[in-house]
C-alpha cells in the first residue's frame, strides 16, 4: 500500500472506532452552528455549554485516536501488522484536520452572517483555526506519548495541575509573564510546533519502547505556559507596529514628581499623546534612592513587578475625540510596606523607575443616531439600536453581540486583537460617555453580548455617572462603535528627585 492509502485506511478505521464520540461531536457542532447563526435565540444561553463542549470533545476524540495506536508501548497491533509509523501519525493528523475543517467552516458560516468583509473573515477564521488547531495537536501529541487511554487521562490531569500551579504564580507575576518569550510570539504557533515535533519524534519508529516522560513533561509545561500566558499578549496580532517605539507619544521625563505620603510613593508623569488614544502604562521596576546612599529595590523585595494603572477615565479620551492632541498626567501609586516606609520617611532623595507605555489607537467603526434604529456590524461587534419606548423619545436600547473570534473556542482562548467600545455622544458632543460593557456572567468569559438603555430618563435605572452632564434627554445623540488597536509601545527610564 502507498503511504496515502495507508493513511486514509487508518483514518477511516479511527472514524469507525470513534463513531459514537464523533456523532456526539457532530451534534454539538450542529447545535453550536445553529446557535451562532442566531437561531434558537430563546435557548441561546442554555446552549452555551454546547459551544464550550465542542472543542473539548474534538480534542478528546483526537486524543483517543492517537492513544488507540500508541508509539511508546510494547508491540502494538498496528506495529505487528506492518503499518508504517508515518502513516499512523499522518492518519491522526488527518482526523484532527477534518474536525478542525468542519469547525472552521461552521465558524466561517457564523461569521459571514455578521456582515464582515472578506479580509476580516479570513483573519478571524485563520486565527481561530491556528489557535484551536494548536490545542488539537497538543491533544494528539500528549496521547501519542501515553501508552493507553488511562495514560491520556493521567496526562490531562497532570496538565491541569501544572496549569493551575502556573496560573497561581501568574496571578502575582502577570507583568513579568508578559515579558517572557511566550508573550512575544504567538503561543499557538509555539504549541503547534512543539506538538508536531513531539509527534514526529514519537512516531519515528514503530515504538521507542522507552517511557516518553521527558517529551511529555516538556509538552505539558509548554502547553501550560501558553495557557496561562496573558491572553492579550498571546493573541495580539502579528503586527510590525507592535514592538516599535511609539514616536507619537511625548513623555516629559523631566517633569516627574515623586512624593511620599503615609503609605505610598506617588509618581506623576506628564504625557502628550495623540487624540483618540488610550494609554496604558506599567512599570517594570522601580527603586528608592535614600539619603545615605542605599537603594531599596522594591522589585526584588517582592513588590509586584508591574503596577498597571488605569490612567485615563474612559470618558476623557472620548472627550478629546477629534479635538487634536491632549496632555494628561499619568499617575502611579506604589504602595510601601511598613518596614520600607520607616526607612524612606524623611530620607528619600530620588526615585527611579522603568516604565512601559502602550498606546491603543482608537478608530471609529460606526456611528449613527440613537433613535434611527438599525444595526452596524464590524469586526468583533454587531450593534443594534432599538427604541426602548414605544415612541422612541425617552430612551434607546442599545444591544450588542460580540462576534466571537471562534464560535466554539475554549473560553480561555477567547481573545481579541481589537478592543471594541461603545460610546454615547450627546448632541453637543461635549460630554461623551462610554457605555461600559456588561459584567461577564458566569461561564461567559468572552462577554459575548450585552445591552444598555441610553439614559433618556432617570427611570431607566442608570447610574448617575452615565447621565448627561446637563441632564438633557438623549434625543438625537449618537452611538459610536470604536475599536482600539494596539498601536505601539515605548519604554523609558525615569529618574527624578523627590520634591519637598
Amino acid at each position, binding site marked *: *500500500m502507498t503511504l496515502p*492509502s*495507508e493513511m486514509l*485506511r487508518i483514518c477511516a*478505521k479511527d472514524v*469507525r*472506532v*470513534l*463513531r459514537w464520540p464523533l456523532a456526539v461531536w457532530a451534534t454539538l457542532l450542529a447545535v453550536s452552528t445553529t446557535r451562532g447563526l442566531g437561531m434558537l435565540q430563546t435557548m441561546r444561553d442554555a446552549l452555551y455549554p454546547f459551544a464550550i463542549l465542542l472543542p473539548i470533545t474534538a480534542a478528546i476524540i483526537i486524543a483517543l485516536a492517537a492513544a*488507540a495506536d500508541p508509539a511508546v*508501548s*510494547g*508491540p*502494538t*497491533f498496528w*506495529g*505487528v*501488522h*506492518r*503499518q508504517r509509523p508515518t502513516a499512523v501519525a499522518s492518519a491522526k493528523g488527518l482526523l484532527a484536520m477534518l474536525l478542525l475543517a468542519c469547525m472552521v467552516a461552521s465558524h466561517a458560516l457564523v461569521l459571514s452572517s455578521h456582515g464582515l468583509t472578506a479580509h476580516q473573515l479570513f483573519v478571524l477564521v485563520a486565527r481561530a483555526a491556528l489557535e484551536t488547531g494548536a490545542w488539537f495537536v497538543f491533544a494528539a501529541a500528549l496521547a501519542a506519548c501515553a501508552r493507553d487511554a488511562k495514560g491520556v487521562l493521567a496526562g490531562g490531569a497532570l496538565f491541569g495541575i501544572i496549569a493551575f500551579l502556573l496560573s497561581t504564580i501568574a496571578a502575582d507575576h502577570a507583568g513579568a509573564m508578559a515579558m517572557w518569550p511566550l508573550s512575544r510570539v504567538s503561543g499557538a504557533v509555539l504549541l503547534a510546533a512543539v506538538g508536531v515535533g513531539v509527534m514526529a519524534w514519537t512516531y519515528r*519508529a*514503530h*515504538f521507542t*519502547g*522507552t517511557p516518553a516522560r521527558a517529551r511529555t513533561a516538556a509538552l505539558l509545561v509548554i502547553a501550560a505556559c501558553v495557557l496561562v500566558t496573558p491572553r492579550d499578549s498571546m493573541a495580539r496580532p502579528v503586527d510590525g507596529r507592535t514592538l516599535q517605539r511609539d514616536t507619537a507619544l511625548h513623555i516629559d521625563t523631566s517633569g516627574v514628581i515623586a512624593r511620599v505620603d503615609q503609605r505610598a510613593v506617588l509618581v506623576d508623569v506628564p504625557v502628550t499623546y495623540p487624540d483618540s488614544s488610550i494609554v496604558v502604562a506599567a512599570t517594570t521596576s522601580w527603586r528608592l534612592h535614600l539619603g545615605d546612599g542605599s537603594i531599596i529595590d522594591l522589585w526584588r523585595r517582592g513588590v509586584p513587578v508591574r503596577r498597571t494603572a488605569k490612567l485615563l477615565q474612559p470618558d476623557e479620551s472620548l472627550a478629546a475625540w477629534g479635538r487634536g492632541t491632549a496632555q494628561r498626567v499619568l499617575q502611579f501609586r506604589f504602595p510601601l510596606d511598613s518596614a520600607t516606609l520607616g526607612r524612606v520617611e524623611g530620607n528619600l532623595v530620588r526615585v527611579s523607575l522603568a516604565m512601559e507605555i502602550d498606546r491603543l489607537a482608537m478608530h471609529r467603526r460606526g456611528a449613527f443616531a440613537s433613535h434611527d434604529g438599525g444595526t452596524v456590524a464590524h469586526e468583533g461587534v454587531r450593534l443594534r439600536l432599538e427604541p426602548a419606548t414605544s415612541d422612541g423619545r425617552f430612551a434607546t436600547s442599545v444591544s450588542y453581540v460580540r462576534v466571537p473570534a471562534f464560535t466554539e473556542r475554549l473560553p480561555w482562548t477567547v481573545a481579541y486583537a481589537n478592543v471594541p467600545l461603545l460610546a454615547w455622544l450627546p448632541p453637543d458632543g461635549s460630554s461623551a460617555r462610554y457605555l461600559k460593557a456588561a459584567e461577564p456572567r458566569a461561564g461567559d468569559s468572552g462577554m459575548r453580548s450585552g445591552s444598555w438603555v441610553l439614559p433618556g430618563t432617570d427611570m431607566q435605572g442608570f447610574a448617575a455617572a452615565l447621565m448627561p452632564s446637563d441632564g438633557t434627554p438623549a434625543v438625537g445623540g449618537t452611538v459610536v462603535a470604536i475599536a482600539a488597536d494596539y498601536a505601539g509601545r515605548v519604554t523609558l527610564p525615569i529618574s527624578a528627585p523627590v520634591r519637598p
Partner: protein
Amino acid sequence: MHMVPCSASSHAAPGSLAIDASHLHFAFVRGTDVLDDVTVTVPDGATCALIGPNGAGKSTLLEILSGLRTPRSGSLRVQGAVVTGATSTRPTGVALVSSRAVPPSGFTITDLLRYLAPWHPRWDMAVADALLEQFALAGRQPIATLSFGGHMKVQLLCALASLPRVLLLDEPFIGLDVATKDALIRGLLTVDHDEVRTTVIASHDLAEMELLVDHLLVLDGGRVRLAGDLDALRSHAPSAATLRDLYVRHTSNSPTRMEPAA
C-alpha cells in the same frame, strides 16, 4: 552454552535458514544489556521453542526478529533478507503474535480481517474463514466483546491468514483455558502442504510446546544457554527427556525439584 547443529526441515532446501542472527546486542538502558551476544539460527520449516526465565530477553528477541526493534549491534537475516544495518528492510512474510498487541475495538472480527488484508500481500481470506470455524469464532462478533482468549485467537487468526513464512509467537498460551489452548495448537498445526512455515514460540507452557516444537532455544540473562535440534539435544543428554528437564538444567532460576517421598 551447548550448541547442536540444526537439521533442516523436510520442507526446506538443505541448509537454508529462516532466521540467521549473529552477535545481537540490545539494551533499553545503556549499560544494561537485555540481549548479550545472541547468535541464533533457525532452519526453514522448523518449529522452535524459545524458553527462559522472566526477563531473559525472549520478547525482545522476538521483536527484533520481527523488525519492530533494531539491535544495537549484530547482524540479522530473516528469510535471506538483511534486517539490520544500513541496507536493512523490515522483513516480509514475518508475523508476530503478542499478548500485548490488543486488536482495536469497534470492529467485528470479519471487518478487522478486511481492514488488515491490504497490508499483507499474501493474505488469504479462505484461510481466515477456515480458522474462524476452527476457533469457534463468529465473524460478526465485535472485538470488544471477546475475552482475553478470544483476543489471542483473533491475533493468531490474523497472523495465520497473512500466510507468514516466519511466525513468531510471544506467550500465546498465557491465560487460556484448556479448550482454547487446544484450538490454538490446532491452528498452529494447520499448515498448507505447499507452504513452508518457520515458527518460534516463546512460552512458559512447556507441556503445550512439547507437542509442537522440534527445535529449542534457551535464553537466560540475555545470553543463549542452549540451542539446536531438540532430538539432537536429547540424544546428547539422555536424562533430559522433556523441555522441562532441559530448562531446569540450563537456566539459573530452575525450580526446586520435588523429591518423591521415601
